[in-house]
């Protein structure tokens, strides 16, 4: 089970094990990591699971699809490395990834 490090905007780090196949959003919500809301439950509809992927990890996370890109356009504090965590599936490739969170999700 890969270890994912969720980093809150205030710097608090949550190192949790997330099973392969779950999304980064599911992993955070199931392990009670604050800062990732996931209101729509992974429908790629709400942009409340917005995260930033550090540059060195971007190639491991794939490219966002058009729908995700569209939703991200309306999120808060979007940057070039913004992603929706519900759209990234955990695999062994993501072992040790650091996932950064925005100041807020709404």
């Amino acid at each position, binding site marked *: 089970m890969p270890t994912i490090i969720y980093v809150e905007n205030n710097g608090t780090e949550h190192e949790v094990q997330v099973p392969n196949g779950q999304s980064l959003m599911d992993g955070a919500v*199931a392990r*009670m990591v604050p800062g990732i809301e996931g209101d*729509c439950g992974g429908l790629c*509809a709400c942009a409340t699971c917005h995260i930033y992927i550090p540059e060195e990890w971007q190639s491991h996370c794939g490219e966002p699809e058009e729908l995700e890109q569209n939703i991200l*356009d*309306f999120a808060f504090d*979007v940057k070039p490395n913004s992603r929706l965590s519900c759209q990234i599936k955990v695999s062994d490739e993501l072992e040790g990834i650091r996932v950064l969170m925005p100041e807020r999700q709404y």
Partner: protein
Amino acid sequence: MSFIETKAVQLLNDLPEALLITTATGEIVFFNKSVAAQSGFSEQEMMGEHVSRLLPQSSRRKVDVVTWFGRWADNPDPEQLRYLTLEGVRKNGESRRYQVRVSRSEDNAEVYFVIVLRDVTEEQEQTAALRHSQLIANRIIAIGEDAVLSIDTDFNICFWNQKAEALFGYTEQEVMGASINILLPEDARDGHTKSIQTFGSGKAPSRFMGERGEITGRHKSGKTMPLEASITKTYIGDKLILSAQVRDISLRKMAEANLAEREARFSAVFNHAVEAIALLDSDGCVLEINEAARQMLPIDEPAINKPLWQLPWWSSANANEQAASEEGLRSNVQEAILGKTVHTRTSLYAGSEALDLDFSLIPVSNSNNEVVYLIAEARKLAGS
């Protein structure tokens, strides 16, 4: 305007929903009474104004509100629209959150956005407050020292914390939806099911550790372990959810068994010693007496917690002798309390008969060099 057109405008104006219409560039061309009441802006103030006066553009959002309208008017997805909200502002400057529905309307090549706003500020705040309190409660459960798990009406596991994972060896993925029986040895399953059914149908909302006996749990590896559990029930509609806090008591039981074994060993030494021995506290009061002491001179009244010198062992028919004996013993105890080992000879009296003894008082100190116990030892003198 025809009668129908006039009536239609009046109906839109009277609509209980907050409705506004903008041009393709966001200029407001219709502003009904509900949106006026909701926002505090009047129709006169807003006609011809840009919609960003009502739904301001945030510098921290990439897309402006008119682009947003275009996106969702062209591709309305009811499922997604449930979650789409925009920041709004009232005339008094107060921030609001609006759930927005938008459609595109075309009239002679002119494009309009028909927009319905629903104020969800309080709803969102309440949801956020609920989510925060759940987060706090869940994080407390997560770091708790006990395993926490819940089962549904069919006895299938529906909640599982990290300590439960550590205790039973199953991950959350492995147990969710599985029967509680996987956590029990086979021969305990029927009994456990009956016990849960009895509790489920009983009047008590909870049962605490210690109120019920020990149960046996089964680790994923097959190893069994003694457990204690507190259990509570919650009805969600007519569905019963039972939740338990479970604690492994192997270590406690081992510690208790070790303690009992040590106690048995020490009492074997104490009670089978040839010398009469009494353990005294630092005031000289008796805490324990061994068998040899009891046999040396049986006494009827309880000796425990009495000062050594007041025991009837030292009584004498002669009042002067008794006083001297008591006083002598008392001063011996005082010396020992100050840390000095005392060796002396003394006499016990069994009615009129005296028993001459070799008598010692040995102080026992703690790590701070404070005397916490005294050991009184007595041995009959040869020929006595």
